[in-house]
């Protein structure tokens, strides 16, 4: 196999790599930093922390978000917690163990150097957040509390009740606000990036649409950092916020940024099942619930409507505990999800029938309540139980929760090197929008860790290293590349507003795309289904451009136009996801190919042929991208069969 991508990784002992790399990086003299301008797109954990830190270092930063305030970025919704190798619990945790768990959890499809750095930095993140006033849970001693979290046998997860993402994001937002007050960061809320400006191979700016008055503007800088989140909304129904989209990353991809491992999308096992066809999104229940809840389904298919509170134990199938006795209900997300899908596919599902199927299993707290008392459970999960009751009208204190897997997170994303720079010079990608740290499957409580590691502690250095090698200079506002990017944006808006045969609102097409992806490139994949999806997506995309109906104009606040533009990009990314899934002839992590399983029915990896990152290059034709490979080298861990039995 030819590996044609250079990740610019340092070499030598793993534990020295990041320290050495930081020494090797060039620095910008503090007095010169104000001469450089940096654009940061997105204000979630990765973007908020990056913009705040870069501003604090003295660069002139412009920060963009499509929401009305930076505080509303979707990191806010993360519930469970954030991992850090502090070993405060004295249970044998260490940077090495967090590194190893993350590599193994990712099914040996991530880069050792990146993951080790992540584990190393994890401890600094907690210190930083505590100093900002993030109110983490504490013991009666006043010291920080921890809990264990899916896939880990040590307690290394720091949390703030079920709202850890909110509290960490508010910490980053406060740091950002401090820089706004100091004049180093300018905020541009309700402003959406619609195009990347590339001049002589370097990312030099973005074109945006002001979502309030529709004005199209160009912004130029010395480099651009994308922190624009994941693409789970390609599936239409996901746990992502309604506004989450891939447009910024996809515009970069069309300019030459490689898109890595797009088929690695994570299904979260504990979401509230769909209740009807009008459903607009799915709600996640933190997987911390699996610490105390037991997952089961009726053993007999004719018990699907039986009262779960009184169904005798010998008629229940605690299928996770049965199949994975060592980890039980705490197996990683992909394994728990597939097991739930299998029991429902075999007719053991519970809850209301939607389109003729019952897609749900129980998550039962009755024993935990009996053992620990309702008060303890309320303290741990009170807000989650309330949320569940508001949505379903049922109380988990008396009736077992119903859960079913849903799309939750995208491990794939823009390809980046060790410096988090994409294949476009001067274009960085951090947080969920890059592919770098989670391999084929992300462990619980690792997304917050990665977003903040990238934003506070990695990209501020690597941006400096990049800028130190370039003279600060400005791009003339009427530069040909700026003009052509602005024209491209205007043309695209005109096309969306003036489809030749307008028939359906944009969501009509999004639901269709989502159903294709969920059925054919979801929890399990096989070549027949993937080829079928690849045959159906291009005609759907053509139909979209011919028949999409967008009312109103481009010069006003127009949410239909915003959504249509995002869906248009999902139509292209969705195809790439299926191409990647078909090309990867193995099962690994979230990518479960039913034609690549062991005799016991578990995922079968093919390290000999697929131990690489698949990084796709836009060729001009969405249906035939060019594949580049980054061979993964495992010098410190030996890829083993991921067994949780």
């Amino acid at each position, binding site marked *: 196999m030819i590996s044609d991508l250079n990740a610019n990784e340092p070499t030598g002992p793993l534990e020295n790599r990041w320290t050495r790399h930081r020494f090797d990086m060039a620095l910008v003299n503090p007095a010169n930093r104000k001469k450089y301008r940096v654009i940061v797109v997105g204000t979630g954990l990765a973007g908020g922390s990056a913009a705040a830190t870069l501003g604090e270092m003295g660069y002139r930063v412009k920060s963009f978000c499509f929401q*009305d305030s930076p505080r509303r970025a979707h990191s806010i919704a993360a519930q469970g917690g954030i991992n850090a190798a502090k070993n405060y619990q004295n249970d044998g945790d260490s940077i090495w163990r967090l590194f190893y768990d993350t590599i193994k959890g990712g099914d040996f499809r991530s880069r050792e150097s990146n993951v080790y750095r992540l584990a190393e930095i994890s401890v600094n993140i907690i210190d930083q957040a505590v100093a900002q*006033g993030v109110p*983490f849970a504490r013991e009666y001693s006043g010291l920080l509390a921890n809990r264990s979290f899916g896939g880990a046998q040590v307690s290394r997860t720091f949390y703030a009740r079920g709202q850890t993402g909110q509290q960490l994001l508010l910490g980053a937002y406060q740091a950002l606000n401090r820089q706004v*007050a100091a004049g180093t960061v300018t905020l541009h809320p309700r402003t959406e990036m619609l195009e990347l400006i590339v001049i002589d191979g370097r990312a030099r700016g973005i074109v945006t649409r002001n979502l309030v008055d529709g004005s199209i503007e160009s912004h130029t800088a010395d480099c651009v950092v994308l922190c624009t989140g994941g693409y789970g909304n390609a599936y239409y129904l996901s746990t992502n916020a309604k506004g989450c989209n891939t447009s910024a990353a996809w515009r970069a991809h069309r300019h030459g940024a490689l898109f890595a491992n797009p088929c690695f999308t994570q299904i979260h096992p504990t979401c509230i099942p769909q209740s009807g066809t009008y459903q607009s999104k799915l709600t996640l229940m933190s997987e911390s619930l699996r610490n105390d809840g037991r997952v089961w389904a009726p053993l007999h298919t004719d018990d699907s409507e039986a009262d779960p509170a009184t169904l005798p134990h010998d008629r229940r199938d605690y299928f996770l505990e049965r199949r994975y006795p060592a980890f039980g209900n705490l197996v990683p997300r992909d394994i728990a999800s597939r097991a739930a899908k299998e029991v429902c596919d075999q007719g053991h599902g519970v809850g209301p029938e939607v389109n003729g199927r019952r897609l749900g299993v129980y998550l039962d707290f009755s024993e935990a309540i009996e053992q620990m008392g309702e008060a303890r459970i309320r303290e741990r999960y009170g807000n989650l139980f309330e*949320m569940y009751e508001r949505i379903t*009208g049922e109380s988990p204190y008396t009736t077992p929760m119903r859960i079913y897997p849903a799309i939750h997170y995208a491990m794939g994303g823009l390809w980046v090197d060790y410096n988090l720079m994409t294949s476009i010079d001067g274009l960085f990608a951090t947080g969920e929008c890059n592919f770098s740290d989670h391999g084929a499957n992300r462990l619980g409580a690792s997304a917050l860790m990665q977003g903040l590691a990238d934003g506070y502690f990695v990209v501020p250095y690597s941006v400096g290293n990049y800028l130190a090698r370039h003279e600060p200079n400005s791009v003339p506002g009427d530069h040909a590349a700026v003009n052509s990017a602005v024209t491209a944006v205007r043309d695209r808006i005109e096309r969306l507003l003036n489809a030749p045969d307008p028939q359906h609102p944009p969501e009509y097409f999004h639901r269709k795309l989502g159903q294709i992806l969920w059925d054919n490139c979801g929890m399990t994949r096989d070549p027949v289904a993937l080829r079928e999806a690849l045959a159906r997506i291009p005609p759907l995309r053509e139909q979209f451009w011919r028949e999409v109906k967008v009312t109103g104009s481009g010069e006003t606040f127009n949410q239909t136009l915003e959504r249509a533009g995002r869906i248009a990009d999902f139509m292209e990314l969705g195809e790439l996801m299926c191409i990647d899934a078909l090309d990867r002839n193995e099962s690994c992590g979230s990518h479960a190919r039913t034609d690549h399983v062991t005799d016991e029915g578990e995922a079968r990896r093919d390290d000999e042929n697929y131990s690489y990152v698949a990084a796709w290059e836009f060729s001009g034709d969405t249906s035939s991208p060019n594949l580049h490979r980054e061979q993964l080298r495992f010098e410190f861990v030996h890829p083993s069969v991921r067994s949780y039995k």
Partner: protein
Amino acid sequence: MNLTLHVWRQADSDARGDFETFKISDVSPDMSFLEMLDVLNEGLISEGSEPVAFDHDCREGICGACSLVINGVPHGPQKATTTCQLYMREFDDGQAVWIEPWRVGAFPVVRDLVVDRSAFDRILQAGGYVSVRTGAAPDGNTLPVPKDVADRAFTSATCIGCGACAAACPSSSASLFVAAKISHLGLLPQGQVERNSRVRMMLAQMDGEGFGHCSNHAECQSACPKEIDIGRIARMNRDLYRSFVRRT
């Protein structure tokens, strides 16, 4: 169920607004309020009309984007619930539902039900933070915080910045929003150094944005989807007076 909706329509901040009435049928009780509006909007787009603009994003009750006054109550009839977490089972068949934007001078209407809440960002920019540099933090366990103090700080920190407090207040005061941040940071040891300047600067900014003063009606705590109580406002006022006589 079938409902009659009276929805505030306004083209932009300068335009004059008015209610428009829609009949909507086949509403499922298991639909969320915003899904009901989605169905209305898809119908409007299909017939070539402009849909009703409203802010929303996470639809999980945490981002704070959704902001509707429903039958005169910010976030609608259900206690401790954001608009996005409100389900149609809370309404009756045949009911009339009046839907308006936040009515606060400092939150100008952008379009229909969407308002501009950037005043809240500016208040927090005036001092709603701890001035710690990235990388300058000591080990997280060097500063123990008693559990009850940490829990109280957390409760104040759960504010989602939606603005329902100001929308519910007869004086359009943002006191509960400001007090929540003052309490969150003021309770923690990390927030002590800037405690005096924080309360003064944030309150001055609140005044400058055109919000009113607290008049003890307590409507804010009834409207708050996170149930932040007005005890925080008393604490904030105490902090303000304290700032005149104590240096830290």
